[in-house]
């Protein structure tokens, strides 16, 4: 018979799952968890982590996603054994698979750790809440901790009253001796409670922190993060030895790329069908992202663009569905007045055909993603390429926002994002502003062509919201582009700063001097 005790759902992900799965299932699980983690990231960027609004919003968003509902179910809710095991398996399997996908570079690892830790914290807090309101004496949190060998030393009543004045003075949220007597306290080495130590919210003595029960989540999360970070480093070193898998490794690679929007290959014809050279002016006004609008207007103004500008813009046009013949027509027309037909054919046509894979090594070059545009080929004097939110000064950017018809308030928000190095979020807010969308509208900008597609979908009355996570397509080139800093700077009010560089990941400056 089944035991009377509720099933524990919270996972520390200590032991990898075994068994076999269809490749399909593997792919779907990975994507499902990836979408989940991206949702975690988005809510974490829009709200202060740990606040009530944050938790409500996250619960709502995750609840709508595949895999999300089962992860949010607390241990008290009883389901039949088969379904329970299935849900646990999906949780554990998707986590371990994503570990493999995200262990390769430091930025991916850091992103993965942050989101998984935030997710863990949410689930832990939900379990704590459920424990409190449960009538039976079962504590899912206690069961989870003991099942994973995590033990926190609790203070006896006598010990607590001995330290009462210090505990009262040091611990926020407890107003009186009477209140103190109702709160359980734990004694842990200060390295277990770093978040609380950092912000001086616990009493410290002789290297030990005296943590109230509300701090247990912080300690558990610290352990979770440390454990995961260590395991990722191990996974990374083991990756070359995974052996074989012409199936798994490209799949994982594509998933990782999907995260940073690095690879984007146009579906045949593009959502707007074929784009003709005569349509570009109008399309630029309504649906191009600011980086491409700028390139287009510079091209019209100067009848010329420099090399990197031609590259960035040309590949973008290819991506929106402009075929080679139209592209040649377009550029020839754009350069007319500065460059005559012969010169164009000699100096520029080759380059255009090269981008379409019709010359040279005939590689089908992908249009640049936001990350790539932001981080490589920094524009100089006289250049028009790059990302305006990154490469324009604040004044010039403000001007452009005004010219685009964006209100003062919205412009201020965008400028702040840009100032905080959150370029892709700035672009997202720009997108919302010019398309007159509310600030809840779900969209995330990782790629100029994606901006274009989202815009066309909106304007063509395609009511459904586009999923911003795209299914991975062929990986044509593996680039080691770092993830944009959009994931980085969170407001300083948060206790959970992602500025940690674990020992395992510390870089050594080997470019220094030789003895």
């Amino acid at each position, binding site marked *: 018979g089944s035991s009377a005790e509720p099933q524990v759902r919270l996972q520390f992900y200590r032991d990898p799952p075994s068994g076999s799965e269809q490749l399909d299932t593997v792919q779907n699980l990975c994507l499902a968890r990836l979408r989940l983690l991206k949702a975690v990231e988005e809510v974490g960027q829009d709200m202060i982590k740990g606040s009530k609004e944050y938790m409500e919003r996250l619960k709502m968003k995750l609840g709508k996603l595949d895999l999300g509902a089962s992860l949010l179910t607390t241990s008290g809710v009883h389901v039949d054994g088969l379904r329970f095991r299935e849900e646990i398996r999906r949780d554990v399997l998707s986590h371990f698979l994503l570990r493999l996908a995200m262990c390769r570079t430091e930025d991916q690892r850091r992103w993965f750790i942050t989101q998984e830790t935030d997710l863990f914290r949410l689930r832990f807090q939900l379990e704590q809440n459920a424990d409190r309101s449960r009538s039976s004496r079962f504590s899912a949190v206690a069961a989870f901790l003991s099942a994973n060998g995590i033990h926190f030393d609790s203070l006896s009543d006598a010990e607590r009253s001995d330290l009462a004045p210090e505990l009262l003075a040091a611990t926020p949220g407890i107003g009186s001796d009477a209140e103190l007597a109702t709160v359980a306290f734990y004694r842990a080495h200060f390295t277990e409670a770093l978040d609380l*130590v950092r912000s001086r919210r616990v009493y410290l003595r002789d290297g030990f922190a005296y943590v109230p029960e509300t701090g247990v989540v912080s300690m558990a999360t610290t352990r979770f993060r440390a454990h995961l970070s260590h395991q990722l480093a191990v996974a990374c070193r083991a990756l070359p030895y995974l052996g074989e898998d012409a199936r798994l490794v490209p799949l994982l690679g594509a998933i990782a790329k999907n995260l940073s929007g690095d690879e984007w290959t146009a579906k045949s014809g593009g959502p707007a069908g074929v784009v003709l050279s005569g349509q570009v002016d109008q399309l630029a006004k309504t649906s191009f992202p600011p980086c491409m609008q700028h390139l287009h207007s510079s091209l019209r103004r100067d009848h010329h663009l420099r090399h990197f500008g031609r590259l960035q813009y040309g590949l973008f046009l290819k991506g929106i569905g402009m075929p080679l013949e139209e592209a040649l027509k377009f550029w020839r027309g754009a350069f007319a007045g500065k460059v005559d037909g012969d010169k164009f054919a000699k100096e520029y046509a080759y380059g255009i055909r090269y981008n379409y894979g019709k010359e040279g090594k005939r590689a089908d070059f992908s249009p640049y993603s936001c990350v790539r545009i932001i981080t490589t080929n920094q524009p100089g004097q006289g250049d028009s390429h790059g990302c305006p939110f990154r490469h324009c000064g604040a004044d010039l950017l403000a001007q452009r926002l005004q010219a685009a018809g964006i209100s003062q308030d919205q412009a201020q928000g965008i400028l702040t994002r840009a100032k905080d190095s959150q370029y892709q979020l700035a672009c997202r807010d720009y997108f919302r502003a010019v398309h007159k969308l509310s600030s809840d509208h779900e969209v995330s900008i990782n790629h100029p062509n994606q901006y274009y597609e989202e815009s066309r979908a909106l304007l063509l009355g395609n009511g459904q919201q586009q999923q911003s996570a795209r299914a991975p397509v062929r990986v044509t080139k593996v680039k080691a582009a770092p993830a944009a800093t959009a994931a980085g700077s969170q407001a300083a009010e948060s206790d959970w700063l992602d500025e*940690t560089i674990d020992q395992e990941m510390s870089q050594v400056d*080997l470019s220094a001097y030789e*003895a």
Partner: protein
Amino acid sequence: LTMCAELLPEELATYYKRLYPTHLMVQWLSYRSPAYFANREFSMTLHDDIYLRFLSYNYESEFRGALLDRRPEKIDIGAVYSCRPRDRATVSGGAFQAKEKELVIDIDLTDYDGVRLCCSDARVCSKCWLFMRIAVQVLDRALRCDFGFRHLLWVYSGRRGIHCWICDRTARQLSANARTAVIEYLSLVRRPGDKQPQQGQQQPPKCHPSVAAAADAIRRQFDDLVRQQDLFGTKDRTRALLAQLPEDLRSVADTAVASWLADPDAYPSLKRWKTISKFAVSRGRQDVEQQLLIQYAYPRLDVGVSTGVNHLLKAPFCVHPKTGRICVPFDPAAVDSFEPDSVPTLAQLLAELSSASAQQQQQKPHLMAYKSTSLKASIELFAKFVDSLRADEAQAADGAAAAGAALRDASNGGEIL
């Protein structure tokens, strides 16, 4: 002998040969494990600003040889790596990593320039040194009582600052994240140019015990500080003080201030301070008085120095190039009597060496030459520190051995000792 405008290689050579405590340094940095010493990174700055990094030595003799050979003007100590730093090219990129290092704290008087009124920039005098004394008292207490650290080496940095090397095993094994947490816990005042530290502070009247203890330590020395720095002696400084008072106290304070400014000589700095602080306390705002103490005198910490596991910091017993003074360790319990002006200079030590009688020189072997110079006390202090450290390490090793033996016995079915 030269007054130090420049460190001459010959003088450094004599220093390293006859005075520098090489053996103690190696004993310290080995922590009873030769491999630990061999994996330690050193860097050296030579004459003409040649800088060499990722130096490492397998034995004391190699280290001593390098000192005599290179005559470094500055030696930095870095982390203990996963292999010998000089062999790092033989391992693949990810395998060469900083593993352990002492937790270090660096305090510099220039970060006090907002409140240090007697001098500015490079100048240091006996009056501003009081800030350092306060810093040592506050931090030594916090590191020992709050964090339980026991092996702290406090070192004078040669001109206008101090370093603290925290050498406990726990400290050496801290991750970068943990180091940052420790420093942020200890940070109460921003340095000019730093970003705002975490606002984890309690709302009044709650005051974290550590903050209260720091305020207590500062209060003991604050009257002297106020007097020496004439902290509130001008209109501007007085206004600055008032600006830090909360709304409810400011209006009454304004009246007091008016009388001060009308007759400045009758109200010296100390009197002004006493008036304001007593007033605040009498209004039940002890927290305000504490905040002021902290604002003016709490140590300003350089976070960047402490955070990185692979950060390099100047070693004790280096010679400061600008002042010629030796970077000597000092006893934090006796910090009140520590005088930067009395710290021996290289020139002075060399003079003392050559004036020691020929007979003395014959009797004492080379290695004991320091005993006839002013460096004696510092080296003996250092020796005591190293001994206590090694005793602890031995105990820890024994403990580990005993635990191992007990495990073995238990698995053999024997009794646990």
